């Protein structure tokens, strides 16, 4: 399958007067994990929010699964099978773990097998143990798992994953990586925003590098790892 599942051409976005994106273009195919790398403030989060319809943006083209999603409200985009896992996690802290998952639940499309609580708990064993617990009582790593699980309950074809490794202990980061690999194994495409090169390298097929709101590099993950110049310029200090 070569046709792009998510296709973005010349995406620009601004918060009021503050411009953040200047013509971002990128593609992701079915089942592919694509990393969007860049430092803080480079425009990664805004790119994801613009795709899901949370930020006003303009684009030459912005399509998902063949549908133009430029003017669609967030919930319609989500229903097309595009899940969003925000960086701040945005867990419903007043709700229990199970209730958080319930909010995300949507039927599977095209007669595929739906994600069930059992399947999710197999990937995130911690969640099973705290089903009835209020989300506010969870650690950062547990919340991160919950927010991914919540999105998977919507049976997405693709997940926009914003900095899942941020601020987490190494052992949790490892579990995150496994979760991404498990998602890929079930055929879910992932657009992964990351600053952590090693995390991204462990799970991604291809990478884009964004800096000051524009794409500076695109290639396979191996190419990025081999390219000292790009790494020095855009990812480290």
């Amino acid at each position, binding site marked *: 399958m070569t046709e792009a599942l998510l296709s973005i051409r010349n995406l620009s976005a*601004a*918060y009021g*007067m*503050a*411009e*953040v994106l*200047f013509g971002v273009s990128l593609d992701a195919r079915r089942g592919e994990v694509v990393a969007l790398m860049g*430092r*803080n*403030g*480079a425009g990664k989060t805004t790119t994801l929010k613009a795709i899901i319809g949370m930020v006003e943006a303009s684009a030459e083209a912005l399509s998902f699964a063949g549908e133009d999603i430029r003017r669609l409200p967030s919930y319609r985009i989500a229903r097309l099978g595009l899940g969003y896992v925000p960086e701040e996690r945005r867990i419903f802290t007043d709700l229990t773990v199970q209730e958080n998952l319930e909010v995300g639940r949507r039927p599977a499309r095209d007669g595929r097998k739906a994600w069930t609580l059992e399947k999710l708990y197999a990937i995130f064993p911690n969640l099973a143990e705290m089903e009835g617990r209020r989300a506010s009582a969870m650690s950062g790593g547990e919340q991160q798992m919950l927010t991914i699980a919540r999105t998977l309950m919507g049976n997405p074809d693709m997940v926009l994953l914003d*900095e899942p*490794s*941020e*601020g987490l202990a*190494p052992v949790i*980061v*490892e579990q995150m*990586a*496994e979760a991404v*690999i498990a998602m890929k*194994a079930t055929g879910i495409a992932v657009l992964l925003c990351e*600053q*952590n*090169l*090693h*995390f*991204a*390298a*462990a*799970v991604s097929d291809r990478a884009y590098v964004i800096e*000051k*709101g*524009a794409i500076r590099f695109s290639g396979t993950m191996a190419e990025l790892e081999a390219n000292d110049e790009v*790494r020095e310029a855009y*990812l*480290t*200090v």
Partner: protein
Amino acid sequence: MTLLKVTGLNKRFGGVVAAKDVAFALEAGDMLAIIGPNGAGKSTTFNMVGGQLRPDSGQVLLAGQPISGLAPREVWRRGIGRTFQIAQTFVSMSVAENVQMALISWHDQIMSVGARAETRYRPEALDLLDLVGMRADADRPVRELAYGDVKRVELAIALASAPKLLLMDEPTAGMAPKERAQLMDITATIARQRKIGVLFTEHDMDAVFAHADRILVLVRGEIIADGKPDEVRSNARVKQVYLGDMGVAAAMRARRGRV
């Protein structure tokens, strides 16, 4: 005398350590950048200097005088001007009026119901606008300006109280790339000419390495490096932090081999 001296600043939010024994110093005329990943404690440190947050412990000395725990208004009175990550201006006023407002406040005329505000301190305001290259736009409403220009106006507002120290929170965030360099150039020139110390946080590494005299790297509330740009650039620990933890990567690679 050292312009700004920060010693042993600590701040916790609930169980999270946002700043741990943060200590640094800044001389007049110098530019000091604080960098670090999200959640490293940059804003916390910044807000403790600016008076928006009260430190749990530690001291902030401005020209030898303790200022920690003072309200932002009082901190401003003692000589600290500041700009914000999202430019904060008075959107219903003209460019000049924005600066005049700061001058009126500096001269303690806020409660006056006498002569019209727009006639007060206009020449002084125009001079400040000249300094940031915005004099030609003095009478335009500030809300009609491009964002880069709003940031310059904000700088002029911050300069109205003739501060000893400027606090700039991500001065180039939200600006087009070419505007960024201009703003940093202007800031650096003013700082050197007027012997103003500048403490800034920034994600744009071009801006940091082109203009900072010294760089402070914060990670999880702690300073892990403090030095000249070249020193920080070649610091292995800093590089590691920015690219992610090597230990995890090794483990991951091993696992991926099995998958």
